[in-house]
């Protein structure tokens, strides 16, 4: 079944078709929510809310358009809305220990170091910048989809992403410098 077929069937009220969409996109939604909110409980709640809203609004969805950006947008709106109404308790992901019980080859260790650096640098970005990076490189939205999702013009989305990457680079460079200094 394609997304489009599933959507049409959802519009007829078929729950099984909606289940197909939920199973297909729940990981990307949950991951996005977790990366943005850094709180697993709240992330799950918001993903559920987003899917419920999508179900309620599915009759108004135009078949033929991609489902993922639409549902991601619903999710992001919910998260932003929540963020504006209260301060969210977070569990810093960067402090979660990566699995280390499996022996790794040297290149894997280097990659692991990169990922650790990335994780720490991501954690230091502003929520806006972390949001565009998560949506672009984790949720894999195109830049136009990203723009639509966060409700800004295409040019603004491009420049925000560019600035986010620039800041991430600064953070990574600072990390590396810090390590060098420390080593020296």
């Amino acid at each position, binding site marked *: *079944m394609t997304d489009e*077929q599933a959507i*049409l*069937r*959802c*519009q*007829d*009220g*078929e*729950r099984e078709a*909606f*289940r197909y969409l*939920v199973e297909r996109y*729940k*990981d990307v*939604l*949950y*991951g996005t929510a977790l*990366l943005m909110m850094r709180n697993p409980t709240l992330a*799950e709640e918001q*993903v*559920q809310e987003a899917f*419920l809203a999508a*179900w*309620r*609004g*599915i*009759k*108004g969805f*135009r*078949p*033929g358009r991609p489902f993922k950006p639409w549902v991601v947008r619903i999710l*992001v*709106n919910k998260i932003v*809305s929540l963020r*504006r109404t209260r301060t969210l308790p977070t569990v810093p992901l960067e402090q*979660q220990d990566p699995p280390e019980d499996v022996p790794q080859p040297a290149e894997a260790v*280097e*990659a692991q*170091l*990169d*990922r650790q*650096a*990335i*994780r720490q640098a991501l954690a230091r970005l502003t929520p806006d910048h972390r949001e565009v*990076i998560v949506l672009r*490189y*984790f949720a894999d939205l195109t830049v136009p989809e990203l723009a639509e999702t*966060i*409700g800004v*013009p295409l*040019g*603004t989305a491009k420049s925000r992403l560019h600035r986010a*990457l620039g800041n*991430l*680079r600064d953070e*990574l*460079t600072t990390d*590396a410098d810090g390590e*060098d200094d420390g080593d020296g």
Partner: protein
Amino acid sequence: MASNYWSDQDIERALRQHFAAVATDLRAPENLWESLEGQLEDPDVSRGWRRLIETIGRMRTPLLTLSASGAAVVAILAILLTSRGGGEQVAEVMQEAPVEKAVAQMAQAPVEKAEKVVEVPVEKVVIREAEVEKVATPAPRAEEPAMPQKADEGEAEPVVEVEKVVEKVVTKTVEAMARAEQTPALATGSAATTRPADTPFQDHPRHPRPATSGTPVSTFSLDIDRTSYQLALAWARQGHEIEPDSVRAEEWINAFDYQYDPPSAGWGFGIWTDVLAHPRVGGKILARIGFQAARVVDDRPLNVTLVLDASGSMDEGNRVAIARAAAEAIRQSLRPWDRIAVVQFTQDVVHELTVTHREPDSPTVRSSIEQLRPRESTNVQASLNLGVRLANEARLERADAYNYIVLMSDGVANVDATNPFAILESAYDRDASNPLRLITIGVGIANYNDVLLEQLAQHGNGWYRYLDDTDQARATFSRDNWLVLSTPFADQTRAQVTWDPDVVKYWRIIGYENRVTSDESFAQDRKEFAEIHSGAATTVFYELELHESAFGTGDVMLGKVELRWVVPDTGQSRGQQADVTGRVDTRFRSATDPLLQFGAIVALAADLYSVLPNRYEGEDFDPSADLSGLAELLGTLRGSLGGLDAYRDFSFLLGRMVETAKAQAPPSTPSGYSP
């Protein structure tokens, strides 16, 4: 790659690798669907269908008395809306040609033109889907997907769903018929006398007629609103009877331009007084006092916060289009040094469309305004809270700017606080030195809360306007008009008239029922008094009875009028006084200023109509005769004013008022003769 140089490609690659690696840690709980499934409700019926049902529900004319074609159109629309896959197409078609309008036109079709009314048996309205598709389904557009096919066989026969839909139509129709039986207007076939649903107004009793010897002082807040008149005109144009409670005479009076001269002193207000005989009651005179604010140029920047209603009720008619046109006109009228923010609201603030203050030509602002569309229920409180917060932040950033919050809504608040005072309390502005000014812009006919919008503006340092169509929206907020409207001239403006007891025996203020205030409050600067913009004019009429000794030739001093206000940019209190004088022997028809005569007719007609039908209880004269007399007098002004749109509009309105008053008049006393 653990080095100190990261190219763009390195970062992008590392990000993708990073996210791929942590993906397993970011997986959703396995049982997500199970916990979700129990919460799923049936998806919403399509918006178009809901609108149709609501429209039929509101109709006072039963479906069965529509013409056959009208009934068929309603039935076909209903079926199309729920036909599989066709809903969105039809909803689009309906947006282009709103079904309410079509149905309303059918409902209002004069009976004499509907001689061929056919009683359509309800059960025959059921049209099988195949027939509908053959007859009425528009051909799919090339870019749109083909009709979906259900994969599963054994689904409920589609026609069953169709029949359910028609059953709903029938149910609603029967309800409408039941209501119709209770509606006398329908029994006579009067097509244009229905009252739009859910339109609360507040009835304010007319002021008494105090004796000057005991009560010589009259104190009131000025008022530059004219919404009551604009609403009545919109109602009448759509064939509705004007609701007497909606008539606030001062807003009718102030809807017109009496062409007062600017203040001769070059500052403050021009205060102009005139007197002429009452046209309908011998021995009484009318005194008109006009206040004309000076026109000033002020380059102070503006912080404008648009608070736009995107709730479901805005889906009716062209409300959203009007609000969008008004918002865009305001944006285009702003200067480069002004700032504008947008808040859209339904049951909550639509955060993704919220734009904080930025330049008027910002694409984000344009985009937010363009995306205004109706959604769910209405939370005026939450949106005004956010509007006030944003406006306050902008005020703190730019202390030299004037601050406007422009609320565009039909006033149908149904989430959180729905009472104007509770809403204002919640969004209270505590900085009186540079106040936030709340302008309310009303749109819509049915489902319209005049009371809420009027009170919000009155107690929110602002003013209230009604917009009937997109052209009016653009004209009202054209650059020239906006420059005037957005330049505050006088805040907390109130007037006090002290009549001379030796000359005036009795006095009565016409209108201003909810603007009259205690005499003691005149000395106080209060938020609920009127905010007057640059160049604005406002007028009050009094009905007076004079002592016989006062009648003579030449100007007679009737009393004094004093005005007080707060200067917006300095916060200083100012005052101004003038004598109320005029020739009390001026007969109505011999007055030299036709605009004075016109204003008097407007004032008296609004005043008479606002108390219908209670006027008949225990009163010894017939307001319909008075209204007819006023209409005749208005006719005598055609030569001098007939070229004005304002004259033509009011003539039309007065004609309708006369019809209503006659229809409501009690049967005449039996003569005693056999027929």
